[in-house]
């Protein structure tokens, strides 16, 4: 897809009120090729803080509704906007095998003052009886800023490579913030889903009894990092705990690579260039396919992930990384 699909129906206003937005949303649901009965499964709130993040989110959401039909509420916060709100209400559709799935998207462009009272904008738009998830593509939000109705928080922490310049996030601080958020609601970390193929490949490698025998020896875990350190920190923290190793270490590299140093043997888990992740040791090979749409996968996760929470807790405690 090189062009964002146009909505089937749209209403827009450069200066509007929630009353008008709600009326437009109700009206568009009745117009067009809609059936009287529709199935819905989720409300997805997306909060962005830049046009770039908004555009990226729109691309990520382009097909999402076909897998999880419901309502998407996209709120773009522009601190310089003032009190004037702009909005678009869209009816979107995805088609496969000759049948269509429809969903609604409501886009609100608001200033900081409105963002400080996000509940008042979001709550009236929520479809009843449905799970409420919120995705913050720009990073980890403050707990107090998340609307009360949100049951699942989908995040992808943005952490600057160490050492952090002043004012940017750091791995331990991010972990602490996520631990606080997870106290009150389900947290789904896209970075954790991103490293799932590495975890899956490693797990499959040790399904074999021969390779499983390698465990139990003193191990050292290293994760080589390219770009974002947060997925690497999670992977390292998890891997060290999973194999009973000491503190893992991070080192720069051209791509994400997990290494387990077993003395005479070394396990390596990395992308193998064929759309898969491969784990190898002593000639044994195990693979896992790279995940599909992370957002679609995230919306299917409705229960707490203990392995994730423990990995985050270790990072927060500072015990995970050297």
């Amino acid at each position, binding site marked *: 897809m090189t062009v964002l699909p146009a909505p089937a129906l749209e209403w827009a206003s450069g200066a509007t009120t929630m009353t008008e937005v709600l009326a437009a949303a109700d009206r568009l649901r009745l117009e067009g090729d809609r059936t009287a009965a529709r*199935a819905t499964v989720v409300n997805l709130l997306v909060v962005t803080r830049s046009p770039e993040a908004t555009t990226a989110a729109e691309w990520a959401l382009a097909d999402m509704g076909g897998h999880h039909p419901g309502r998407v509420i996209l709120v773009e916060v522009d601190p310089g906007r003032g009190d004037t709100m702009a909005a678009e209400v869209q009816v979107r559709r995805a088609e496969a095998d000759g049948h269509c799935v429809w969903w609604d998207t409501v886009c609100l462009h608001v200033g900081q003052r409105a963002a400080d009272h996000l509940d008042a904008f979001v709550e009236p738009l929520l479809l009843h*009886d449905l*799970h409420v998830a919120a995705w913050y593509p720009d990073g980890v939000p403050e707990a107090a800023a998340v609307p009360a109705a949100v049951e699942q928080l989908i995040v992808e922490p943005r952490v600057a490579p160490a050492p952090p310049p002043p004012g940017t996030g750091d791995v331990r601080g991010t972990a602490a913030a996520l631990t606080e958020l997870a106290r009150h609601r389900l947290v789904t970390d896209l970075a954790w889903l991103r490293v799932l193929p590495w975890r899956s490949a490693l797990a499959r490698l040790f399904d074999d009894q021969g390779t499983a025998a390698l465990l139990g020896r003193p191990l050292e875990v290293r994760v080589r990092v390219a770009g974002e350190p947060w997925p690497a920190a999670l992977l390292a923290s998890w891997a060290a705990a999973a194999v009973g190793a000491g503190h893992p270490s991070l080192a720069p590299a051209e791509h994400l690579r997990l290494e387990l140093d077993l003395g005479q043997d070394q396990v390596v888990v990395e992308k193998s260039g064929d759309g898969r992740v491969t784990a190898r040791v002593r000639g044994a090979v195990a693979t896992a396919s790279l995940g599909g749409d992370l957002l679609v996968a995230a919306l299917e996760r409705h229960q707490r992930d203990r392995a994730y929470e423990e990995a985050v807790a270790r990072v927060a405690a500072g015990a995970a990384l050297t």
Partner: protein
Amino acid sequence: MAEATDNPVAAGLDRGRQAPPVALVVFGASGDLTHRKLLPALAELARRHQLGDAFTVVGVARSDMSDDSFRQLAVEAAHEAGPEWEQAVKGFRYVTGDYGEAATFDRLAQVLGEVDSERGTGGYRVYYLATIPDQFGPVAGHLGEHGLSRPAEGSFCRLVVEKPFGRDLDSSAALDAQLHAAFDEDQIYRIDHYLGKETVQNVLALRFANAIFEPVWNRRYVDSVQVTVAESLGVGHRGGFYETAGALRDIVQNHVMQILGLTLLEPPATVDAQGIRDEKVKVLRAVEVMTPDEVPNAVVRGQYDRGWVEGEEVPGYREEEGVAPDSQTETFVAMRLVVDNWRWAGVPVYVRTGKRLPKRVTEVAMTFHRVPHLPFASSLSRDLAPNALVVRVQPDEGVTFCFGAKVPGPGFKVRTVSMDFSYGAAFLENPPDSYERLLLDAMVGDPTLFIRTDEVEQSWRIVQPILEAWGDGATPLHRYAAGSWGPRESHRLLEAAGRRWRRP
């Protein structure tokens, strides 16, 4: 009045319902209710040819107005006045006068005589009290004293009364006595516009036209019932009136009790006025009356503070026009009711209503028991909600059913899916406004959707002890931020039983 069966050409034709040649006398003709609801509803009936050629409105109010001015007001009140309405309006009349003065009714009697003669209304009268409640009794009394409440031979006289029907049990009984001094009970049509809504009536269709629902509509399958009547608006300019009412009187005593009655009643032998109303009274009689000690634990009252609603910052109740700065009037009520009969014993009925809540919505939800055993691994179905059948009264009238379905894919996860039936999208016809239905019912003489005196009495019987307990200061007034779902205490009402309020 010629019946359709007298016309051989009409034999076999289903011509729908049409009002007889009636004079509709509207007291409060220059008021808000008449302008916003009654006249537009009548215009729509005219457009659908459901008003006869002789149909006439006679407006009565203190505002000084001529017949022509009233006709102009009637045309302007209709959203899109068509030729049928413009034609009908030509015969409308207006009487200026004080409701407490006999001269007003002398003049009214004269005008009605002229209308009978000129328009052919033949003594058929419907009197609509769209006035303030204090005027209900006096107007009815004057109608009686002037002989206007007794129909001429072969005609009818009916009295339509808007809520509130009194402020408490005693005043309700007193009002009834005043009305009954002039009118028989079968002449009195107490209106609750919620009963005219398509979806409220659809509760009956849902229950009794479908074999699959009635067998589970009881305590064996239903875990709890929740009724929510939420408004996002505040009191606006009606603060002075609201100070004398509050949420319990304004909403619970009437709308909520009617919705509950239809939802919880036993199947009637016939869906007619007597059948439905008898069953409603029976179920209201089964609602346990709270003792003073029970009220603080079963009822939460609240009042909104400043906050944000639908994207706007709004003032608190005590800052509203006409409201005392130390007002103790509740703008929110939540309660737990017990219906002690065979069908509903042990099923809690939770009710909440309030102003300045996050959105405008009215719904009644039946939440069913969870399955006794889930054969799926708990990790695959942990988020599964119990089945729920929800009737949405407003907005977006319709019915929703929530059930568990497999998530598409190679695994086996189960999640909750919401299936929505929306009236607005299902049919080309727009559901008629409730006043269209109710006005026509009053004119053709169908009281099914109107409230009988014993229903009013039972509703007050349930509410009265709560009012008395509040008067004794037994229940604190909890403040809540405008835009929230009410005071925290209202959530504890359900959490104590392991439940929680729905997010409607």
